[in-house]
């Protein structure tokens, strides 16, 4: 319990990572795979931001009374990563739409049945 409390963000990271990867691997529906991918990427955001918070630190503002502040750099990095994630998701969904037009389905096993070389 103490582990859970003190490293909640790390535990959450691991759980999300595993859930995300599982969904990607185990689900044959293409949209669901993309959802899993998104969950997986979210776990990475947590991985960076969680440790960035310094206990007892404030927001990064330069002012005489503030001595410690949380690290702003992970937030910057993760903003970039979120954008990349959004772009990936958008592109992925666009491709899925086109696949649906071409094959009439978005289940991976049905597509492989139709086109064994795909």
């Amino acid at each position: 319990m103490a582990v859970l409390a003190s490293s909640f963000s790390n535990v959450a990271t691991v759980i999300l990572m595993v859930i995300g990867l599982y969904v990607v691997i185990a689900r044959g529906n293409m949209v669901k795979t993309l959802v899993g991918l998104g969950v997986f990427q979210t776990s990475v955001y947590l991985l960076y931001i969680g440790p960035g918070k310094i206990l007892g630190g404030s927001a990064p503002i330069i002012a005489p009374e503030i001595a410690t502040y949380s690290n702003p750099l992970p937030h910057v990095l993760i903003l970039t990563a979120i954008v990349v994630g959004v772009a990936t998701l958008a592109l992925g969904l666009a491709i899925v739409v086109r696949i649906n037009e071409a094959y009439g389905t978005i289940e991976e096993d049905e597509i492989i049945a139709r086109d064994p070389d795909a």
Partner: protein
Amino acid sequence: MILRHLPALIVVLPLLAATLCAMLRRPHAAWLLALVVSLAIPPLALALLLQVLAEGHVSYWLGNWQPPWGIEYRVDAANGFLLLLVSLVGGAVMIYARDSVDREIAEDRRVWFYAMYLLCLTGQLGMTMTGDAFNVFVFMEIGSLSTYVLIAMGRDRRALVAAYQYLVLGTIGATFFVIGVGFLYLTTGTLNLADLAERLPQVADRRAIMVGLAFIVVGLSLKLALFPLHQWLPNAYGYAPSIATAFLAATATKVVIYLLLRFVFTVFGRTLPFEELALPTLLVALSLAAIGYASVTAIHKDNVKVMLAYSSVAQIGYITLGIAFGSETGLTGGIVHLFNHGMMKGALFLLVGAVAYRTGTVTVAGIAGLARRMPVTFAGIAVAGLSMIGVPGTVGFVSKWYLVMAALERGWWWLAVLVVGGSLFALVYMGRIVEAAYFRRAAAPAESIAEAPLSLLVPAWALVAGCVYFGLDTELTVEVARGAARTLLRLSP
């Protein structure tokens, strides 16, 4: 003034051009813009390389922010040459592109093709140049996302599925890479590669660093299609438009291999990965598996592009084998094969693209008897094929020589024999293509098939000529590879 800002220019030019391209209406105008920019970059890369050769390394502070807080572009012997290679291939492919794109891509999408191509170029150039770990991720994703689009533009509907699979696997790879970088950042507080190299040995918690290394290696391995994480490559290269395949086969995986080299040798230093983590054993095993499995699979494929794609997986195995030796000879062999394979595969995919241009088919059955109608094209394929087998006088031989020498230096006889044995697989699958083209009766006498147009043949044959020239005059390539190897192994500053 330009000379001072070369690194930034090299990345900014194609990035801006991509945006401009997307706003154009006429495909040929887009092509022209892409061509001009693609041809403008090699001279810049060459100038940068000359600077590097003169000064040892070039360090460019983006926005004039001092590293390690600011992002640094750092070019040294290891990546200066790769920059030149990527930009040269980019330029050569663009010359070839107009006719091929007109033939293979729907009219309303051509402008987007050129825009995505320029973005892909930006991503790869940026990946090669940057000296900041997270910046690597950013450029990697810029390159990858545009690659997914390029592949999805292929004619066959299987290209869509291939692009989707590449997207999923590629994103997992990139995310693993970010996780690894995250561990490095958490333990050292810096993202600058050179700074990481200094700080990592001082970190007390070795386990976190090893986990970081593991994630980075796995993530990069997914991107460079190291067996068994290669599943996405054959279909992606096989069904993409011809020039996309040619460009990607020659550059994409090479840049990621460079990143692997950079992280394993420069950032982590040779000791940790090689002695503490048993990376060589793993790499040797996977490389051999790649060479064996991929070559054998290539032999049975009917689609020539898919066959060549599996061949690429095998050849990547050779490069990682060179890395696994960790010796100067081994690394020289691996790095020189990076360049040589880029030339060989680039030439092959361009020539096969020419065949597709004229006939619309790329199956072994489909090219039966074509050598009579397209003699120059198939002569090029035969010569490039000889290079793949590793006949002396071609670049393929040079790489094999160094790899075998590196194996023998270690006393690993069995490995030397396996390396040369792998050439025999190449003999079989290239032999299938050559036999079908030269000795089989054409299926249906198609009188209308003529030789490929010059715009396609000239760049392709330039690469073929390179295969032979650099096989006979290896001074440049071997010296650069050796310089890169020595820099990575910290044998010279």
